[in-house]
């Protein structure tokens, strides 16, 4: 065999060596960051705003006591329930404090959907609440705004793309299994988003802001390395 031919054929494989960059720590961190950013961009691009996540018959719902409690810290953070209100700000025409009764007065949605944890487990539960999009209309949110951010009674925080927020199954959830949310599941109000992983569905909501710019602290788990998009 002509060694020149052999050499030329070997050279054709050289792009594979680029993968060796993953062995260099500095390059690896950047490449993986780019890989995750690309995956998040793809997740946003393929998201269909009107496509519904699967819904299930009442018989497919796990019993309430087998629906997992999952918190990052405490399951019962200090909340003054008598004075609780959701503080709304940012790009909205009617900012201020919104009582639970005002949220309950919006059309109620009850849905059996699959809750999927980033760890890999899942559970089909029954959730009730108001559509986030109805609530944004109530507060007069800027229709061109790109994100909402929320903060919680337990120092948890999260942010969401507007396409997901406006998806018809995305709820401000105040009921599970036809009863008011219990403390461990996020009383008095949580996000319930069948098109997002569990860690995006913040509990114990205290504030909600409509914005075009994500803050430096944008997602409790996202800031530690999970995908920010977290879409299903």
């Amino acid at each position, binding site marked *: *065999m002509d060694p020149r*031919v*052999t050499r030329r*054929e*070997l050279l*054709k*494989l050289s*792009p*594979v060596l680029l*993968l060796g960059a*993953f062995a260099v720590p500095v390059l690896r961190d950047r*490449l*993986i*960051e*780019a*890989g*995750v950013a*690309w*995956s998040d961009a793809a*997740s946003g691009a*393929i*998201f*269909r705003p009107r*496509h*519904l*996540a*699967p819904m299930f018959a009442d018989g497919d719902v*796990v019993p309430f*006591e*087998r*629906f*997992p409690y999952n918190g990052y810290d405490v399951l019962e953070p200090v909340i003054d329930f008598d004075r609780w209100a959701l503080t709304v700000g940012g790009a909205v025409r009617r900012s201020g404090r919104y009582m639970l009764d005002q949220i309950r007065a919006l059309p109620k949605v009850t849905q059996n959907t*699959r809750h*999927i*944890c*980033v*760890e*890999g*487990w*899942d*559970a089909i539960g029954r959730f009730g609440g108001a559509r986030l999009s109805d609530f944004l209309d109530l507060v007069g949110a800027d229709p061109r705004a790109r994100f909402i951010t929320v903060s919680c009674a337990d120092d948890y925080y999260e942010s969401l793309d507007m396409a997901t927020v406006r998806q018809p199954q995305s709820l401000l959830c105040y009921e599970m299994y036809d009863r008011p949310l219990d403390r461990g599941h996020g009383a008095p109000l949580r996000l319930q988003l*069948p*098109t997002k992983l569990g860690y995006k569905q913040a509990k114990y909501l205290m504030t909600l802001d409509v914005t075009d710019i994500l803050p430096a602290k944008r997602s409790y*788990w996202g800031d*530690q*390395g*999970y*995908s920010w998009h977290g*879409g*299903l």
Partner: protein
Amino acid sequence: MAPSATPFPVYEHPWVVRFAHWTNASAITVLTLSGLRIFGAFPSFGPKIPQHDLIEAVPDAITLGGWLGGALQWHFTFMWVFAGGGLLYVVGQLASGHYRTVVFTKRDVMGVWPVARHYFFFGPKPAATGTYNPLQKLAYTTVILLGGLLLLTGMVMYKPAQLSSLGLLFGGYHGARVVHFLAMCGILAFIPGHLVMVALHGWDNFVSIFTGWKRHPEYAPLEKEQ
């Protein structure tokens, strides 16, 4: 040179095959190690409550990423490498017609047992008829299909809501998770056999997956491949 070998070198592996082989080998390594770390976060296929783990702990030595978030980052990066390498391979093989050397067909069925008998029970060596023998074709075709299955079930697990229709094929998120794991086991079962065969077939064969050219092949090169 083996007595049955021909003196002519053959161009056995086109560029696409060699390139895809090495990108996919790298991707499969990363995806398996990070995947095992991800599995370790919930090592079960049952409900969360009550949780029945299949393994107490996945040993750190066979994982990548350090923690669940780190493993997911590797997985979400290399899934694109794997998808790209797989797509390149399939498109390249179809476009060149080279897929005919590797796809297992009805005509290969009868040839599997004689080859298996030769390797496992020291039976007589069947005459070489092409680039790959029927057992090789069966193994390679299976692995290619498993790779496709891993991609599809991975997509369902990644986007169970957006791809809910595709998910129906595998019984939804849950089913896709089981099939994804089993397909990985299938690929893991293939690799040791593949490596043993490579070791047994010597240097000329090994070099061909880098240069494409194989010296002293056991079969006569086809006209168009010279």
